[in-house]
């Protein structure tokens, strides 16, 4: 494989890894804060699934890059502009409805992505994806059940679930944007063209939203350029919390 191809593969793998890593960090926030103890454990489990995906992908990116960076170097010693995750996953989510609306969108996208990526011509990406398909199917199931219950619950929960969906929906567009991706990676069967995921993802989410007696929001897309390293204000705080321990004590194990 050519050097250019390798560079594009590193970028692609980092983008998927950072989505999972940053989402895992947000999921971890819910431990001790979810509406019930059982949900604490459920969201922690989901976060740990995502962290596992991120670790495998970061390790793969480091290996292909060939500069001796391991998963910890990539997770803890890159700065904000080097992170390639979509802005959707990094934003604040201290409202449970928002967390479930976002998980519905993100898990549905991840599930479609990994289903297609499990046929990647890159054997490592295919293996990671095959494992993650089962995990994300459960994440999607979990989010769907909550969205339906909150949407089709009381007047108050319906109103707040719709507001949460309205807040998250504009940020989904970046998930389907292929601008960051080298077309050669798609042509060689390594990567999945994210534009092809839009219809199946929005179709599945639409079905859940209708079952929840909610409306699919009709709102313009947000200006979201996380794939280019341009993040929202909260990203710096998120990274500070995630990276401070490893940076204060380089090489520490815990």
């Amino acid at each position, binding site marked *: 494989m050519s050097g250019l191809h390798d560079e594009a593969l590193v970028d692609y793998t980092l983008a998927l890894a950072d989505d999972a890593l940053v989402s895992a960090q947000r999921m971890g926030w819910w431990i001790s804060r979810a*509406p*019930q*103890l*059982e949900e604490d*454990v*459920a969201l922690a*489990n989901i976060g740990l699934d995502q962290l596992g995906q991120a670790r495998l992908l970061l390790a793969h990116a480091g290996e292909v890059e060939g500069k001796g960076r391991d998963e910890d170097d990539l997770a803890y010693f890159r700065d904000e502009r080097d992170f390639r995750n979509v802005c959707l996953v990094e934003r604040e989510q201290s409202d449970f409805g928002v967390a479930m609306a976002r998980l519905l969108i993100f898990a549905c996208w991840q599930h479609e992505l990994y289903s297609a990526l499990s046929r990647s011509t890159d054997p490592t990406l295919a293996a990671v994806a095959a494992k993650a398909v089962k995990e994300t199917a459960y994440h999607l199931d979990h989010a769907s*059940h909550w969205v339906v219950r909150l949407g089709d619950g009381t007047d108050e929960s319906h109103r707040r679930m719709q507001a949460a969906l309205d807040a998250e929906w504009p940020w989904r567009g970046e998930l389907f944007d292929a601008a960051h991706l080298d077309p050669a990676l798609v042509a060689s069967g390594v990567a999945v063209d994210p534009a092809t995921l839009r219809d199946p993802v929005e179709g599945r989410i639409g079905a859940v939203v209708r079952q929840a007696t909610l409306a699919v929001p009709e709102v313009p897309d947000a200006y979201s350029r996380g794939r280019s390293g341009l993040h929202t204000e909260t990203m710096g705080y998120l990274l500070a919390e995630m990276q401070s321990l490893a940076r204060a004590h380089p090489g520490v194990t815990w």
Partner: protein
Amino acid sequence: MSERIEPLWEVFVRARRGLSHVHVGSLHAPDAEMALRNARDVYTRRQEGVSLWVVPASAIAASSPDEKDSFFDPAADKVYRHPTFYDVPEGVQHL
């Protein structure tokens, strides 16, 4: 959400095919579907099982501690109910 008390569910896990479901604990959930999912997350995250049952705790009729004497003590002196009065022929392995 937390102000309203959600129903209690008893959780049963089958560890492997061929074994029976065993009671492992209880949890709160608004309905059976969510109870199953909570049970999956709380009780099978370390590969404890291949099958789950959840049962509304209110659906279980339990013997009362007050009835312990009349329920269980009469069995205490009935040694003839135990299969210990048979001579087992030598070499029989699966009796």
